[in-house]
């Protein structure tokens, strides 16, 4: 498999979840798009095919580790900080993480889930996103985010509690059982 084919496979498998990860990180579609392209440019420059052939055990965790480093690099530039402030003002109520639905109830549910997730503090938001949407285990989250596993678990618990608090009054099925 050539490097190009390897990149195409990675894109087809992970592009959406990586884009939404960047969006959860930056809260900006524009920056998420730039970061997604930067990620693939890095993969292309570093020959993703060679890297994956050299014993990357967990492809998904490896990609999210690269994505996290990319976000950190990106956030260091003054330009990115300036755009982030601008994006926070404009894109808080922009399109959600999930696909639109013709069913109004489902569409409303998806919008509310996205809004509740975006409202979480960043450390909890990232862990909840990686666990619930990207499907990583706590060990993989710990590797990708370079945090202890216990920290990942505690951030997840706090995040879920806040989601329940936010969504419980609207959706009775999400209410905390007495």
């Amino acid at each position, binding site marked *: 498999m050539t490097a190009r084919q390897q990149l195409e496979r990675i894109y087809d498998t992970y*592009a959406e979840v990586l884009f939404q990860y960047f969006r959860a990180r930056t809260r900006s579609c524009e920056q998420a798009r730039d970061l997604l392209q930067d990620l693939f440019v890095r993969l292309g420059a570093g020959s993703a095919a060679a890297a994956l052939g050299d014993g990357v055990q967990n492809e998904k965790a490896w990609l999210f580790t690269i994505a996290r480093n990319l976000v950190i690099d990106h956030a260091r530039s003054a330009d990115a900080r300036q755009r982030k402030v601008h994006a926070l003002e404009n894109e808080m109520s922009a399109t959600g993480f999930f696909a639109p639905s013709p069913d109004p109830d489902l569409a409303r549910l998806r919008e509310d*889930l996205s809004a509740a997730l975006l409202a979480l503090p960043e450390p909890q938001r990232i862990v909840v996103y990686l666990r619930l949407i990207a499907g990583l285990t706590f060990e993989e989250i710990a590797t990708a985010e370079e945090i202890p596993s216990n920290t990942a678990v505690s951030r997840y618990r706090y995040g879920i509690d806040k*989601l329940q608090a936010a969504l419980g009054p609207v959706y009775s099925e999400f209410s905390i059982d007495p």
Partner: protein
Amino acid sequence: MNDLEDPFRSQPLRPLPPSWRAEILNAACPESGNNGVSPVALLFSFIPKPVALPLAAAWVIIAILRVSTPASQPSSIAAMIAESPRSSDSGDQLDHALEVRRMIWIAWQDERESLESMATVREVEREPEWIDDRRLFLP
């Protein structure tokens, strides 16, 4: 807890615009090199480009001129020395050296005579002009 996790997990993610795929992949890994290039196209890539053609033509012309141009003739003195007989005995080396010296002397004399004769011819050719000038100023 599962009541909250399941709705999140069951929702499909928003699809990305289809145009992004080509844009991002082309930025990451341009379709060049051997990927998708037919062998014939690869062969054509080795044909000299127009920029290199004049340079190649210049080299061909230089090579043809060099092969077709005869080597310059050796000078008369050097030719005489080269064609003079050489003795194989070491005792005759002095005679050979004297013979060479004599031949150089003769060649030099010939050269001087030819130069003198050329100068005489030039003076003879200029004389009518001098006579004409004298006639103009001395009636």
